[in-house]
């Protein structure tokens, strides 16, 4: 059962009409209920809800604490390749981004080096990332990387190109816990406008990918839209519908949501729909009230100060000390040096929160939360050889 049918039933006009009818009474009703409908979510996301932000924050905090306690899980991204065959206007990895920085795919020994460096810091949960290059960075390579990472970490997830079910099954077989795959934008027109090359141009294939991962047995499914591409209120509603769909179809998989906000984009792309801090907070709070048991991830794309403020508002997992270039932990650490620009390995985005894992752990504790390094066990996803 594809989510495409739901998307067809919820065109932009229907979502806009839903927002247009929202009144303060709808917001108050949505706040007071325990089980919230799509209509309630629209109320909480709408501009009408702005005066209710504090009440939403209190409810979001209560729900998050009930479901997750006062804990924040820690994870680290490992970029294993920055080769990319797609041409996404907003991304530094894009094949036509104009960057002359180095492209590379880590070999097994290099992946091990990166893993070793992160494991030494205490990490147990990692996210492996690549660009969109299924032909030159094939499924087998990623499956091998998962198996290597599993020698060091109890939980390994990937954020890579959309695959078919067999591809996800192969990763699952090698010990994968989760798949994160941002739709980037659910809006078909915008999707077409910003994705100019490669297999990624296929909107439908990407839309159904996360469901295929669930079918293949992947336990954690990560959703997200790239905030800034399109109108966030409309995107959020589509994302919520997607989440509800997945909860029914992939009932054994846990969902998590990320909130990647476009900041520094290549020169050829201007963020048309920027999301302000208050809007980002409203988005997170409203989604928390709608999806109380879903994990919410916050990456180092956001500033240290902002991230710290968000800890008690519904975030459940944070990355820390991240590098967004392949080899960034053990192999190419010298990127900070002057005059290296010509030879530096290309990074996907500039990290805003540059604190070390230790500093982030201290910030989490200061907020009254327990930093959790391990929340998954290898026994749940045994590696199968070969």
């Amino acid at each position: 059962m594809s989510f495409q049918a739901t998307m067809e039933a919820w065109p932009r006009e229907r979502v806009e009409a839903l927002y247009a009818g929202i009144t303060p009474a709808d917001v108050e009703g949505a706040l007071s209920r325990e089980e919230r409908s799509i209509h309630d979510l629209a109320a909480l996301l709408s501009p009408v809800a702005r005066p209710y932000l504090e009440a939403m924050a209190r409810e979001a905090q209560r729900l998050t604490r009930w479901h997750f306690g006062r804990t924040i899980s820690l994870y680290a991204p490992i970029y294993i390749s920055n080769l990319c065959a797609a041409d996404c206007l907003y991304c530094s990895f894009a094949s036509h981004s104009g960057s002359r920085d180095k492209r590379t795919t880590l070999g097994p020994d290099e992946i091990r080096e990166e893993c070793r460096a992160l494991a030494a810091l205490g990490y147990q949960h990692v996210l492996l990332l690549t660009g969109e290059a299924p032909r030159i960075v094939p499924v087998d390579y990623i499956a091998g990387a998962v198996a290597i990472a599993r020698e060091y970490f109890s939980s390994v997830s990937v954020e890579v190109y959309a695959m078919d079910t067999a591809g996800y099954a192969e990763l699952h077989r090698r010990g994968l816990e989760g798949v994160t795959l941002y739709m980037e934008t659910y809006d078909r027109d915008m999707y077409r406008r910003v994705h100019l090359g490669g297999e990624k141009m296929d909107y439908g294939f990407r839309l159904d990918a996360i469901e295929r991962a669930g079918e293949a047995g992947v336990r954690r499914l990560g959703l997200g839209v790239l905030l800034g591409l399109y109108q966030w209120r409309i995107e959020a509603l589509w994302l919520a519908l997607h989440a509800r769909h997945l909860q029914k179809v992939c009932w054994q998989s846990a969902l998590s949501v990320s909130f990647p906000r476009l900041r520094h984009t290549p020169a050829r792309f201007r963020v048309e729909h920027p999301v302000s801090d208050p809007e980002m907070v409203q988005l997170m709070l409203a989604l928390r009230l709608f999806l109380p048991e879903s994990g919410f991830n916050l990456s180092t794309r956001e500033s240290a100060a902002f991230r710290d403020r968000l800890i008690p508002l519904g975030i459940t997992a944070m990355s820390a000390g991240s590098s967004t270039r392949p080899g960034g932990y053990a192999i190419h650490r010298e990127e900070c040096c002057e005059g290296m620009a010509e030879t530096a390995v290309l990074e996907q985005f500039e990290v805003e929160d540059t604190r070390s894992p230790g500093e982030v752990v201290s910030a989490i504790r200061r907020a009254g939360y327990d930093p959790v390094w391990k929340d998954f066990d290898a026994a749940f996803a045994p590696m199968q050889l070969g």
Partner: protein
Amino acid sequence: MDDPLIIAGRTFRSRLMIGTGKFPSAQSLREAIAASGAEIVTVALRRVDLTRPEDEGILSAIDPKKQLLLPNTSGARNAEEAVRLARLARAAGLEPWVKLELTPEPRYLLPDPIETVKAAEILIKDGFVVLPYIQADPVLAKRLEEIGTATVMPLGAPIGSNRGIRTRDMIRIIIEQAKVPVVVDAGLGAPSHAAEAMEMGADAVLVNTALSDASDHGGMARAFALAVEAGRLAWRSGLGPQRDAAEASSPLTGFLFASGESPA
């Protein structure tokens, strides 16, 4: 009053068990354990690394001389995963006790009866003392008891829901029929809920979220301990069943006996 709780031949004075997830720090957990007087403390194996010593994690808050560390399989989706996890814990040196939690769906964390029975069979044969977390299903409780589980642990409401005992009628039947201790687990959000379970005749309760979410962890743990004690004492003291209808004022069977004659 000597009223110990006996599970698999082992004696416990406290009838309050506590879960260790969700606390803001090991220190807050330590306070809760101390104030609760709990002697059975359950730990999710997925949260701990038994191969590494801890200075500030969950395990550091448990005193093995005072509390039985009861590992649980929370996060397992099927029997195979739960069994694997339990065996790893035993191999790492923990006692062969396990709280079986098999929750294939991640939203409400409701237990899977089929996989729970499968895992219980395997683990009992393997020499484990098995305490299964189950739906409040009286037939399932009997089936598990027959397999040889050390307790049954029916839920009052979904984990972390704070809703109290929503499965009252079924828990009543489970208690009435059980030959093993009945531990009401999950959903107990206030001391009054715990007292109610004990007044119904439960042998023990297990609490986590209500303690970890309190602003004073020790205070809330103590409140639960008192409630458990009060509920137990009330049950032992012959708390009458609550009646739905008033007693008929004139006897319905008086006609059977001659006036002045007693039915006895």
